[in-house]
């Protein structure tokens, strides 16, 4: 009983009913926990999320035609921000800037809004359909799922997991990288030391140019897309490369020899490092070169 009462007492609902068709400026501020969860739903438009030093969530921005209300709820320090579309059936858009305690765990849901996240140290989870997603830094873990939006993770500290259908994936930070796409390209470039990487495509290309940590393991797989690996040299890792019909070009070690038509056809094992690099394609070409 008492708990219920406290919960409802702590419930703070701020509703901004809007006249249809108007552009409305909004500004809301609610208390939040330093390491709480902030959930943000903005179907279309744009969204900037940035971390700050206060135990508060602040939402500013404009709500466009078709957005009925901005709902900001704080329940025991857990915050939910939602630009609520009206009943008209028209998709409304909102441009929101949301400031959150920098160690918050942030979950974003959108369809087509552009999403930019910066200065966050907690975990980040983004679900989108077509909007581009950019992460400037520095979440402890990042997970992004989209269909056609391009995803860029500039800085991240730990695990980065990205899935797209044809959106391009660019990862420049993170230690544990997982990226999957059907026809989008995956580019891992300029990252710090990578401990683990799992990159997979069907027809998109993969570029993996990164420093490998001791004992690191990288698995790159492609059906028909080309795979390019750029590392300091053969001493960077133990390489295990195979392709059924794609050409293997090796500038780091011995040339690939054709073993047979199937069973993998081209297979190349070389290198002396304690890291492991596995590359497997069906028909995509493989290039190993110096970084």
């Amino acid at each position: 009983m008492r708990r219920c009462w406290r919960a409802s007492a702590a419930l703070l609902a701020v509703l901004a009913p809007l006249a249809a068709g108007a552009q409305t400026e909004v500004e809301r501020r609610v208390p939040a926990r330093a390491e709480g969860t902030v959930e943000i739903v903005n179907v279309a438009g744009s969204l900037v999320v940035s971390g700050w030093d206060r135990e508060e969530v602040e939402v500013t921005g404009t709500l466009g035609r078709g957005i009925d209300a901005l709902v900001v709820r704080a329940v025991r320090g857990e915050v939910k921000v939602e630009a609520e579309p009206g009943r008209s059936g028209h998709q409304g858009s909102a441009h929101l800037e949301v400031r959150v305690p920098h160690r918050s765990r942030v979950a974003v849901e959108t369809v087509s809004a552009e999403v930019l996240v910066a200065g966050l140290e907690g975990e980040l989870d983004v679900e989108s359909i077509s909007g581009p997603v950019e992460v400037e830094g520095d979440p402890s873990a990042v997970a992004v799922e989209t269909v056609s939006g391009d995803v860029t993770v500039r800085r991240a500290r730990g695990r980065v997991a990205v899935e797209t259908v044809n959106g391009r994936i660019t990862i420049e930070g993170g230690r544990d990288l997982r990226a999957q796409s059907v026809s989008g390209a995956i580019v891992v470039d300029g990252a710090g030391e990578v401990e683990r990487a799992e990159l997979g495509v069907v027809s998109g290309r993969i570029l993996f140019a990164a420093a490998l940590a001791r004992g690191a393991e990288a698995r790159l797989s492609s059906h028909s897309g080309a795979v390019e690996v750029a590392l300091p040299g053969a001493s960077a890792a133990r390489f295990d490369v195979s392709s059924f019909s794609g050409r293997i070009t090796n500038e780091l070690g011995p040339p690939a020899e054709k073993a047979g038509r199937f069973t993998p056809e081209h297979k190349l094992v070389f290198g002396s490092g304690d890291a492991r690099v596995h590359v497997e394609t069906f028909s995509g070409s493989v290039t190993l070169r110096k970084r």
Partner: protein
Amino acid sequence: MKEPECDDVTLQDFVDGWLDAAQEGRVREHLAACARCRAEERQLRRLLARVAELPRTVAPPHDLWPGVAARLGGRRASPPAEVETIERPRRARSWNVRRWVLQTAAAIVFTALGAALGRLIPDAGETTAAAVRPASSSAFAAAETEYLRAKDALWLVAASRRDELSPVTMEIVRRNLVLIDEAIWELRQALAADPGNPHLESLLLAQHRRGLDLLRRLSARSA
């Protein structure tokens, strides 16, 4: 002035190239002498030239596939009954509610896949040859059949939602499913040439899994 020997149907056959040499000769003779038929011939050829330029294809004003897909169900092994529950709430109350309904439905479809798959299909990230688990060929075939059935079911779910999904998104997904299917096709060809090759089987299951994953995400989403 129309001469008695003017015969429009014969002239048409002449223009269409249906006459034999003797008949053609007679029409030419007539044309040389008859201004009316010459004009007729000229106009006919002009019309046919315009007709030849008509576009061969005309895009339907909207996507007719959902209507087709809805009528195909009968012949195939019918999708799991759970699919029905997804189609009923045509317009759910809100984005989130709809999402929940779809996610639940997709989860049901997946649960229906059963444990057979779990034994055979490598987890995400274990799809490279190095992680191939031994599977007998019949087990492999069974897994593939299950995959195909699940894909069909999910595709019907996705197709039934099409008017609520953005056409652009649907088209992207469709094209990418085609890419996956092409990859599967190539791998099947390779497997036919090298039956039981575990690397190829692993690549093939990985592609099925990818297609399924894409459909699952699609079914669980609205745009």
